[in-house]
């Protein structure tokens, strides 16, 4: 085993059955030098206090469950090494989200935003299986691949100052997802999607803090998607002024 030291983990606790507002609780626990923040939480859950609630699953930075605020920054706790911090680590639920319990936040608002951008391939005429796989050049793949890497961990929502102030804002991940389909050579639905992008809370609600891209653990760069979305949806809007709808 690796070296063991003691650290204090200060965790936000909130049980709606008992607490009016969230409070904090400190745990002093032995930690191994190769642990991530999530390992410390799991240690607390297993050995110290089984009433602590947090979400986690894959512990390999791909399921997106375990996003939390660590010392004030949104982090994927399974990827964030304890050794990055001093002897006291503060773990809170994701900022900008209503808190259900302890470190568990409300996800349904996010899921609704997600669906709004129509994250599926839209085609005038659906392809039949017999037609085989569509051809797509490596370059066409590269046009959208980056935007398809989002694991929906919602760290970007926690970092974004607009998300916390504007309840209509679609938010970075949802817009990046819509942009991912807009940029996919197999898709023909960008006009439909751009209407959503131009609505209240769409791309132009973004004031380009760039925080989403700073905290993204998967280098998706949602801020870039939002800005590109601004340009492309505006073009679509201008096209709509000149050409009647439905013409290309």
């Amino acid at each position: 085993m690796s070296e063991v030291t003691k650290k204090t983990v200060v965790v936000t606790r909130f049980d709606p059955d008992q607490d009016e507002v969230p409070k904090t609780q400190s745990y002093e626990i032995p930690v191994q030098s190769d642990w991530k923040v999530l390992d410390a939480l799991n240690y607390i859950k297993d050995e110290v206090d089984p009433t602590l609630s947090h979400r986690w699953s894959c512990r390999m930075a791909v399921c997106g469950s375990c996003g939390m605020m660590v010392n004030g920054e949104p982090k994927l706790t399974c990827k964030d090494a304890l050794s990055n911090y001093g002897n006291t680590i503060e773990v809170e639920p994701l900022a900008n989200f209503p808190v259900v319990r302890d470190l568990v936040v409300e996800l349904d608002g996010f899921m609704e935003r997600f669906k709004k951008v129509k994250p599926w391939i839209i085609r005038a005429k659906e392809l039949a299986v017999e037609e085989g796989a569509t051809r797509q050049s490596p370059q066409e793949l590269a046009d959208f691949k980056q935007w398809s890497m989002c694991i929906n961990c919602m760290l970007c929502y926690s970092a974004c100052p607009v998300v916390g102030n504007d309840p209509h804002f679609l938010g970075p991940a949802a817009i990046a997802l819509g942009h991912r389909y807009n940029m996919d050579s197999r898709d023909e639905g960008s006009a439909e999607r751009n209407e959503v992008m131009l609505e209240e809370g769409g791309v132009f609600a973004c004031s380009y803090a760039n925080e989403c891209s700073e905290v993204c653990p998967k280098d998706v760069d949602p801020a870039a998607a939002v800005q590109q979305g601004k340009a492309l949806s505006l073009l679509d809007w201008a096209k709509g002024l000149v050409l009647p709808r439905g013409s290309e």
Partner: protein
Amino acid sequence: MARMAHPQAMQPAKPGPTRTAAARMPQKFPTGGRYLSYIAFGATSFIYLYVALQVLRMVNALASGEAAWNALLESLAHPVYLAFNAFTFLVLVWAGWRFLIKLSAKAQPKKVGPLRPPPAQAVPPLFGALWLAASALVIVVLWGIFP
């Protein structure tokens, strides 16, 4: 404790079945860490507003006769105003750097319909050529070739 977020922030359309604790903004917002430069960048708009008002003032002075104009020029020579000018210059350089170099580069779509931007290596010579052409045009005009 961090500031409260909007009470509806990230709430689903229909409130969830159990009571939730209100959402909070990130601890460091608005003046900590990287948020500071975002806020400062936004705050530069006050300077642009002020400069715009100055322009209006100039137009007004021009229309009000020579005395008014001279008075304006005199007031602009005030050392505080000169210091402000220097400050504005620095702000413009910083804001331009942040906007053009840091933020705008990645805001360019990889394609617009079938159109793609030129390859990244071609951009600097393209700008160079554009600059030369514009300079040539200015020189030609100043020489009075065009009436």
